[in-house]
């Protein structure tokens, strides 16, 4: 049982807990997103990344399970922005804010996609994905601070909802991209997307994933994600959603101490199911109580003192 109020406000969103369903995880169906939004411990849910047009993604194999995480190369499958609006119509009884993730191959396409999905009343905020490591065109955008800034400022001009930018760890410029996004008007940052990775079948002498490269997520990613959040928090003033390899409540605490105002869960759902939200919320609550804190806000960035 949680006795402590875990609610947080981030970039204009009010969340019951700081725990968010990360993009790419289960977020295809409106009905399933709504069901997850009602699960105990969930603060917000994020959709799969939506583009302007439908995309099948890559043929299988698209995922590899390792003792320390997952490598996925789904290839951004999605039904396209217009069809996704109908999907959201089915997301009845949403009980947490819904963040719509989206992408584009160019600034124009990003803006057009944002225009379509932002108008749905069930979309509380948008998250711009410029960091998918297995789809070229989307992957490289996230390395270019000036392009990210241009996309953010153009999107912000046409939407009246908070905009997050999901950052790529596959560049030494992550802080520069974060700063550029913030200066261009982004309301928040999600750090990080997966790390570009590879696996080879030693019997068949070939890469396992049909898309060859994939993104590494799960426990192996956590220290890298934590370092990114820490570095960004030092330099950039907008709120950060920490994301990468969280598997227990102390991982959540670490991200918040590093500077995250909320934390997104992804791969851990493959290992523990949706019930993990409740487990981590309870763990976070007991941690705060044990250390004598009354809210999540009190420990955001505390490791920087």
């Amino acid at each position, binding site marked *: 049982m949680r006795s402590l109020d875990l609610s947080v406000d981030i970039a204009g969103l009010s969340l019951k807990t700081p725990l968010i369903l990360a993009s790419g995880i289960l977020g295809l169906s409106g009905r399933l997103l709504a069901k997850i939004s009602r699960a105990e411990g969930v603060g917000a849910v994020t959709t799969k990344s939506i583009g302007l047009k439908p995309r099948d*993604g890559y043929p*299988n194999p698209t*995922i590899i399970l390792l003792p320390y995480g997952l490598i996925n190369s789904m290839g951004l499958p999605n039904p396209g922005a217009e069809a996704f609006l109908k999907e959201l119509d089915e997301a009845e009884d949403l009980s947490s804010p819904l963040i719509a993730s989206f992408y584009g191959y160019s600034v124009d396409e990003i803006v057009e996609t944002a225009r379509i999905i932002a108008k749905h009343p069930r979309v509380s905020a948008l998250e711009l994905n410029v960091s998918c490591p297995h789809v070229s065109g989307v992957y490289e955008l996230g390395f270019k601070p000036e392009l990210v800034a241009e996309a953010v400022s153009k999107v912000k001009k046409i939407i009246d909802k908070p905009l997050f930018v999901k950052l790529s760890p596959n560049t030494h410029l992550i802080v520069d991209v974060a700063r550029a996004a913030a200066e261009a008007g982004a309301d928040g940052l999600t750090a990080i997307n997966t790390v570009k990775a590879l696996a080879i079948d030693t019997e068949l002498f070939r890469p396992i994933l049909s898309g060859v490269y994939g993104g590494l997520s799960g426990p192996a990613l956590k220290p890298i994600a934590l370092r990114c959040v820490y570095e960004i928090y030092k330099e950039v003033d907008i709120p950060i959603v920490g994301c990468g390899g969280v598997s227990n409540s102390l991982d959540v605490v670490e991200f918040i101490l590093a500077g995250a105002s909320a934390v997104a869960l992804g791969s851990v759902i493959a290992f523990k199911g949706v019930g993990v939200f409740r487990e981590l919320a309870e763990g976070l609550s007991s941690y705060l109580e044990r250390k004598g804190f009354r809210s999540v806000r009190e420990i955001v960035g505390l490791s920087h003192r």
Partner: protein
Amino acid sequence: MSVYHIDRSMLDRHRRRIVRIVRRVDECLDTVSLYMHNPFSSDPIPGQFTMIWIPGVDEIPLSISYMDSCILGVTVRGVGEATRILCSLQPGDTIGVRGPLGRGFTIVKGRSLVVGGGVGVAPLRYLIYRLIDVGVDTYVVFGFRDKLHTIYLEEMEKLSVEGRIKLCIATEDGSYGFKATAYDIASRILDESFDMVYVCGPEELIRRILVLCVEKDLPMEASIEGYMKCGMGVCGSCVRGAYLVCRDGPVFDRDKLLEIGEIGLRRRRASGTIEPLL
């Protein structure tokens, strides 16, 4: 359980094992059963599935149609690129296998009705052997398009002659058995004496049997399909209603099938786009 919460059994089930095909059986003109050395370290439950990797082509879900301590069997109908290539494989060829995956059928003692249509009979074959093993009074109804598309016929008739199952075969054109659909036959047989109804086949069949089981208040389980990608409950591609076929299924009970609602009415493509079936 490891400190990272990726438990060993999950790692084991999702490791792609490269195995050699030891035997192929042409079941009918477009359907083949492939047999390989059992790569699993745990005993699968009937209704569970495998992900079969054809390197360079695709990795697709197939239900387990045969299992003993040494041999794993799957039955595949050639309908797309990956399934046609699988149907062309010969003994000695290699494929990758992971599994057993998903939730299988619940074995209920007493009297059961097993209803299958087309290649949907694949998981039911393994189920039938398990039902016989535990002494369930098993009534089998299989329906096919015509005689040329019948599967497991000799095998089922042998079980029937031996008195281990009661069997009814139907073809739509009457070229073998009754001229009827599996639904027609099942709807005549179904009464309150059955303790469980198992179904796999075209969704139209599943939907109609579901309606019947709800009317008669009979327990029912059906194996359904979704567009499978990760097979481990994380990508969401195989979602039906608010359930994942790979993790919550592929076998669902009557109440969950009702909750899903869309059985036989619509499905998703690779992109997640919904297409109507009617």
